[in-house]
Every structure is written in C-alpha cells, then in structure tokens.
C-alpha cells in the first residue's frame, strides 16, 4: 500500500517535471506573451518620455534648457498647491467633466438605439452622426477660428459678430443651456459608433424570444439590450471622461500650455502630473465600482 502511494507520487512528480508548466500556468504565460509587444512599445515610446517629464517636475527649468537645471525636490508641486487659483480651476474643470459624462453617454446610447433600427434613410443618418469625427483636424480650426463667420456652437466660445442665419443660430445656441447641449452632442459621436457596434453584436434571437413572451420594446431594452451592452456603457464612460479631461479647451490644459509658453516647464509638468494622477484615480475608482455590474 505504502509503496503504491510512493510510486504514484513519483509518477506525478515526473509528469510535472516533464511538462514543466501546468495548464493554468501555460495559460498565464500565453496571455503575457500576447501583451509583450505592447509592453515593449510602452516602455520605448511612452514610459521613457514620461519619466523625463517626471524628472522635469523635480527640477528648476529655464526656457532655453528643458531637461537641465537645478534639482529642487518637491518645490514645483508646492508652488502649484500654494496657488489657490490653480486648485479652484482644477476642481471646477474636474466637476464639469464629471457632470458631462452621463449626459454624453446617455445621449449617445439614445441615438445609437434609434440608428440601430431598420428604416429607410438609415445610412444617411449614420453618416450625419459621424460628421464630427470627419470634420476634425485643420478643417475644424478653419471653422472655429476667425476669418470665416465662426461657428461658435462648436467652439463653445462667446459669440462673435457673425451675420445671417449662422449668426442667428450661434446667438441662439450660445452660452446658454442650449449651447452646452449642442457642444455635448457634438462630442458624443465616437461614443455613438461604439454603441452602434455593441448593439449590432446583441444576438437577434434574444429579442425574438422575449417578443414571444409578450415583452414590449421598452422592457426588452431594459432587460436584454442594457445588460448585454453594459461593458460598453463602462467603456464609453471611461472614454468620455478621458476625452473631457484632456480636451485642449479644458481650463487646466490651458494653464499647462500657458506655463509652458512662459518657460516654467517644471511647474507645468508638476501641475499636469497631479492632474493626471487625479484623473487616473477617478477612472480606476469608477472601474472598480462598476465591476460588480459587469457580470
């Protein structure tokens, strides 16, 4: 009896030493191999430049020499914290970003559900709601800056003296709640497309089943569609948050750019690092809170 057990143990030992990884271990190694290319790129193109920027935030820098200068410890961070104006701006822009997120995501979901329907002319509407992505880049700066009767709905700035129908619309849409809604709608087209792709992947059979059981469209939305696309609601919330945190029109980003123009790279780096960490922590808390909702 004892001998048999010994034999079995020896056999088991042999087996593990032959295929030196168990099935679970092998799966982990596989996963890591899949991510390695990304990690290499991350270290090469992101981590090294980022560490330089961290280093800058601990040094006193000059306009002529961004990476040189004297080591001053946390001085730059203290300068930022001591400025009451910065704190106010950071908190304000943070809160306004967080307000915007549910509105953007809700609106995007609404439009995506409408666009998923099969109706004549759907293609045209799908194109129209994608226009904000196409009109980005240089074209956008042409539309929003001087020279041409600027469309201030898009820039979100105060009204400039433009004439004609465009002027009427821009004054109508400006500053007020309507203007903000227009701005938010314009921002949500990436989210609309992500939702549209997610909605297309909901199996059609599920809807057929609940229709036979006598569910209304409203009920099937809450019990089929929403649970099925819940990961994408979270994804879109993450993206909407990131998008509004790093938007160039964000007041904090403006301060950072102004500081860079003046030449105080150290202070700029310190401010942007603190802001970035705040944003990262917010997003991670959001992801942790919504994790239970996923499955």
């Amino acid at each position, binding site marked *: 009896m004892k001998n048999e057990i010994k034999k079995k143990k020896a056999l088991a030992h042999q087996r593990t030493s032959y295929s030196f990884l168990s099935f679970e271990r092998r799966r982990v190694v596989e996963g890591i191999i899949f991510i390695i290319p990304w990690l290499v790129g991350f270290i090469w193109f992101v981590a090294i430049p980022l560490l330089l920027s961290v280093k800058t935030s601990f040094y006193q820098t000059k306009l002529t020499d961004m990476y040189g200068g004297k080591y001053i410890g946390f001085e730059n961070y203290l300068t930022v914290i001591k400025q009451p104006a910065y704190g106010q701006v950071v908190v304000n822009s943070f809160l306004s970003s967080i307000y915007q997120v549910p509105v953007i995501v809700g609106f995007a979901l609404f439009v995506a559900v409408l666009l998923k329907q099969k109706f004549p002319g759907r293609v045209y509407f799908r194109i129209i709601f*994608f226009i904000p992505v196409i009109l980005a880049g240089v074209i956008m700066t042409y539309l929003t800056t001087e020279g041409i009767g600027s469309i201030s709905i898009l820039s979100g700035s105060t009204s400039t003296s433009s*004439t004609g129908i465009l002027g009427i619309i821009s004054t109508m849409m400006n500053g007020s709640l309507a203007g903000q809604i227009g701005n938010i709608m314009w921002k949500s087209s990436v989210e609309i497309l992500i939702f549209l792709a997610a909605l*297309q992947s909901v199996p059609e059979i599920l809807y057929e089943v609940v229709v036979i059981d006598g569910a209304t469209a409203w009920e099937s939305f809450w019990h089929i569609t929403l649970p099925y696309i819940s990961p994408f609601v979270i994804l879109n919330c993450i993206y909407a948050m990131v998008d509004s945190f790093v938007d160039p029109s964000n007041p904090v980003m403006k301060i950072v750019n102004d500081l860079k123009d003046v030449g105080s790279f150290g202070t700029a780096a310190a401010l942007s690092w603190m802001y970035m960490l705040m944003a990262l922590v917010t997003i991670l808390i959001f*992801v942790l809170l919504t994790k239970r909702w996923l499955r």
Partner: protein
Amino acid sequence: MNENLQKISNYFTELIKKYENLGYKVKKKILFIIGRIFLYYVLIELAFLFVLPFIYIFTKALMTSADYMDATINWIPTAVNWKNFSEAWKALDYTVGFRQTIITSLGSAILQTVFCALAGYSLGRYKGKWKSVIFILVVLVLLIPPQTTILSAYGIFVKMGMINTFLPILLPCLFGLGIRGALFILIYMYFFQRVPDAMDDAARIDGAGAIRVFSQIMLPLVKSATVITFMFSFVWHWNDNFEASTYMYRKSVQTLQPRLQNIRSYYSDIMMKSTGADSLAQKALTEPMLFAGCLIVMLPVLIVYIFGQKRLAAGIERIGVIE
C-alpha cells in the same frame, strides 16, 4: 371656453375607444407609424446641428470670390464655381499628398487593428494578477495627451534617423500604440470579454493552439470591434495634423492635413509677388478655394466610412453560443 374643452376631450375619448376596438394588426400598424414619425422627427432635429457645418463648407466651396464678399449671400451662391476645386487640387498638390496620407493612414490602421487586437485579446481572455497592472497602464496611455511625450519621442526618432519618413507614425502602431491605440485595446478587451468561454474550450479540446484560437475563432467573433477600430484609426490618422506635421515636415513628404494648413499662405505668396493686393481681397480669393480644399480632403474619409458602416451591420449573425 369650457364647452370647447369638453368637446375636445370627448373627441379624444371617442378616438381612444375607436382605437381600442380596432384589430390587433391595425393597432400594431398605427403604433408603428407613430413610432416612425417620432423617430424621423427626433433624428432630423438632431441631424440639423451635425449637418450644418458641412453644408456651410459645401456652399462656401462653390462660391466665387464676389459671392463670398457679398453680405447678402449667405448660403446659396449665384453661380456654381467649379474652378475652386481645381485650384485647390493644384495648391494642395493633391496626388502627392494623397499618396502620403493613404500610406500613413491605411498602414497605421492595419497595424493598429492587428496589434491592438492582440493586446486586447490578452486583457480580455486571460486571467491573472498582472492583468490589472496592464489595465492601469493602458488607461494611463489613454490619458496622456500626445503633446506631453512628443518632444522626447521626436528625440528618439531623430536618433534613429527616421524623420521625414513614414516610420515615426507607423512604428508606434506596430506596438499597439499610436493615435488613441489604448482606446482600441479597451474596445477589443470588452468585446473579447463578451465571447463565451465555451467557444475557447471547444477549440482547445479539438487541439487548436493559442494563435489558431485567436485568429480563427475569436477574431471573426468580434468583427464589429475590428470594423470600428479600423474605421476610427483610419479617420484619426487621416485627420491628424499634430504628429504628421512634426514628423514629416519636409514639403515633398507632407500629408494632406499640413498641406491644408499651408494653403492660405500658398495663395497669398503668389498674390504678394504679383500685385501686392490687400488682405481683404486676398481672403476673398483664398477662402472659397480653401473650403473646396477641405471638401476634397474630407472625401476619401467619407467613402471609407460609408463602406465601413455597412460592414458593421453585417456582423450580427456571428455569435452562435449564448451563455
């Protein structure tokens, strides 16, 4: 007044009664029609805001400079002036610019789609503690604006002698970075998480290796993710001015967006040499052509999107097993 109200309410109660007496099929039809009217109403109302800038560009692109200066003409030009387009074509050096842009954006779209899918697959399908670390890093990458790192990245590319080639834009894409690569990884991650484990296990029992499971089982199941990643990547690289003008600044290798930015100065240079005209007249001459330039730069993206969104609709029937 009160009587009138009474009449109206009576009328409606009767209408509702009539409706309730109707057959099931007719009821359904009426509801359907009401739904459609609501749908079109809401969509047209919303679409107005989105389409307005587009119409603006289009009408301005057709105007002659006289029309452009005329304050009474806002939307409809007196005559269609197609010459703007040929002028813009020449000013942009469109054929060369198009070649440059299509290589950068198509190349990086393909690379990003493949390599972000790999990274997203790893995050979405495998378990382990290392995953949460990688997830935090991906969100961090998404959060960093390109302006923060471009200076040091530029230094790296100068050292490798890659400036004014396609490589500074294509190389990060090869590692799943590039413009908003982190977002694509997250999209793939969430799509892969949705796929039931049964698919994976079945393929593995049949003896498929990791690469085979990825390429032949999993990737076809998340076709929607592939389509939107490709589309977004293409469009964002096409519209990118910041990176393209930093890495490919020499005139002969510029992509379309930097060319579009320079189009203003191109025209005024010629004018200044020949006539020395004042700035207002210059603007009147340049501006319509500039909008025509915007249109022809935009057109390929629009075509890609129109074909892409059709694919989006075709990806439905692929998910077979439901948990």
